[in-house]
């Protein structure tokens, strides 16, 4: 191996043991049905990590019998970059920057989870306005995140137009969030004690205009474009069914859990920020198939728009952050704080030893649990449906690998 192109392999930069044949777990799996008792040779198909429809660097090893999936295994870690380890070397107010890059399309909610955990340790009282600003940015971010899901889910079914419409509306939200926080994606807006800055002047009118348009024109348009499409409906209805029992057993949260008929939403069941004072509905599905997950997320966008309207109308006066020391040294202790992000319950399990760095920081990623449920529900489907099922659960590799 004297070829300079292979130096990287020799330098040990590239890992070993990547191409061993998959050892597939037994016991949990369904047995292959087969058609008329006909058995063909099983074939292991590799999807990813570079694949147009795996939503990031997910690698699925799918064992197929003809067209039918017999076994599926998710291989992850292609984006493992040590958020939990690095947090032990960051100060408490910098945890938000890491959380932003975990679930990178709904950054505000990740920051909020970290901030809530630190505040629990510090026992600091957050001003009412900060609560409202946190909820407002969270809901804006939720719509932006669901729009990314909506656009890419449509791409998985073979449609293209809805992606462009979703991106158009997402840009409108990113403009608002950029005006509020200063960045398009990595906001770093929510900090322990409150938020970084108050709303810029004149932004309420912008948000109102966006919500009016979104609720009355754009969202019905989105729903008609994709959900009203017969091809889309026939492709997603009845596939990827997650029963209520499976959903609870695999620890699903968020829209995936609610689509299976469990009415659990952190915003309603363990309210945080401004949610105790707000009115909203928690939509649930019936069968737990991909179509139900679609309906639940569309309804969530509607509810988010409703929340934004309430938040803008009732925005209280006052300071946007509590006074906290520059260097935070929370007393020793262990806490868990959770928020309802767009993918489910994003939790932060924080252990402090009294120093200025966390002793242990654990990020509970909702997508990780959705992903292991995928391994269970994908077998029995046709191979063409695999990307649809992955798309319908809206897994985010940034937070799975952390």
């Amino acid at each position, binding site marked *: 191996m004297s070829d300079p192109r292979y130096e990287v392999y020799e330098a040990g930069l590239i890992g070993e043991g990547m191409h061993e044949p998959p050892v597939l777990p037994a016991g949990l799996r369904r047995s292959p049905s087969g058609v008329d008792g006909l058995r063909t040779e099983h074939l292991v198909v590799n999807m990813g990590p570079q694949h147009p429809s795996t939503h990031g660097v997910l690698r699925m090893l799918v064992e197929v019998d003809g067209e039918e999936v017999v076994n599926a295994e998710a291989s992850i870690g292609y*984006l493992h970059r040590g958020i939990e380890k690095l947090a032990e070397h960051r100060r408490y107010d910098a945890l938000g920057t*890491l959380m932003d890059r975990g679930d990178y399309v709904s950054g505000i909610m990740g920051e909020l989870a970290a901030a809530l955990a630190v505040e629990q340790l510090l026992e600091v009282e957050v001003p009412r306005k900060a609560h409202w600003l946190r909820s407002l940015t969270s809901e804006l971010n939720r719509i932006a995140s669901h729009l990314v899901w909506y656009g890419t889910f449509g791409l998985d079914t073979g449609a293209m137009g809805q992606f462009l419409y979703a991106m158009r509306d997402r840009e409108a939200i990113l403009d608002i969030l950029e005006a509020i926080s200063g960045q398009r994606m990595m906001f770093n807006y929510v900090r322990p004690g409150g938020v970084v800055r108050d709303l810029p002047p004149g932004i309420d009118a912008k948000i109102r205009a966006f919500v009016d348009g979104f609720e009355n024109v754009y969202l019905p348009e989105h729903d008609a474009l994709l959900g009203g499409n017969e091809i889309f409906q026939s492709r997603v209805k009845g596939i990827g069914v997650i029963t209520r029992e499976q959903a609870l057993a695999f620890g699903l949260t968020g829209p995936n859990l609610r689509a299976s008929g469990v009415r659990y939403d952190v915003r309603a069941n363990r309210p945080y920020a401004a949610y105790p004072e707000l009115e909203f509905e928690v939509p649930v599905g019936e069968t737990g198939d991909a179509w139900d997950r679609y309906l639940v997320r569309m309804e969530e966008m509607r509810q988010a728009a409703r929340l934004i309207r309430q938040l803008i109308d009732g925005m209280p006066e006052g300071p946007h952050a509590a006074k906290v020391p520059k260097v935070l040294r929370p007393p020793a202790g262990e806490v868990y704080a959770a928020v309802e992000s767009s993918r489910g319950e994003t939790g932060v399990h924080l252990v402090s030893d009294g120093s200025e760095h966390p002793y242990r920081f654990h990020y509970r990623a909702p997508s990780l649990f959705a992903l292991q449920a995928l391994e269970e529900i994908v077998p029995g489907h046709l191979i063409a449906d695999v990307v649809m099922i992955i798309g319908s659960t809206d897994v985010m590799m940034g937070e799975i690998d952390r």
Partner: protein
Amino acid sequence: MALDRLTGENSILFARSEQLFDYARSKSLWYLAFGIACCAIEGLMSASGPRFDFDRMGVFFRASPRQADVMIVAGTVNRKMAETVRRLYDQMPEPKWVVAMGACASTGGPFREYPNVVLGVDQIVPVDVYVPGCPPRPESVQYAFIQLQKKIAERAKERVDAARG
């Protein structure tokens, strides 16, 4: 049209083949749809969305490395991913270019302290353009493509000069 600008009033153009091919290449830089992390949302998704609309510059995505000219490394590359990045690069046909998008792909970014993270994708594949930012705005990626076009034009000139001797 662009060809008119080259040929003027006459409809005949004398050009060296290298020059002509490189001109065509610089106007149709197809990138590989290979989003690794956060930067992919900005550099690949927003970029192909309606506001930034890279398609109008002849820049759009290809799902297969065998049809792609440019690889935008958009995200943190770790030791498990490194082999895949190199494989995809090896699968792309010549000539090919690499854009290291964002702090992670350039140096390891905010994750450089983690021993599992590769300190910049230039340790694995040769990089032509680095784009700073975390994540860079889609405009920055547009600028990166303009720089890449300049680089290709320069290369064409060098090759013609070399042929002339």
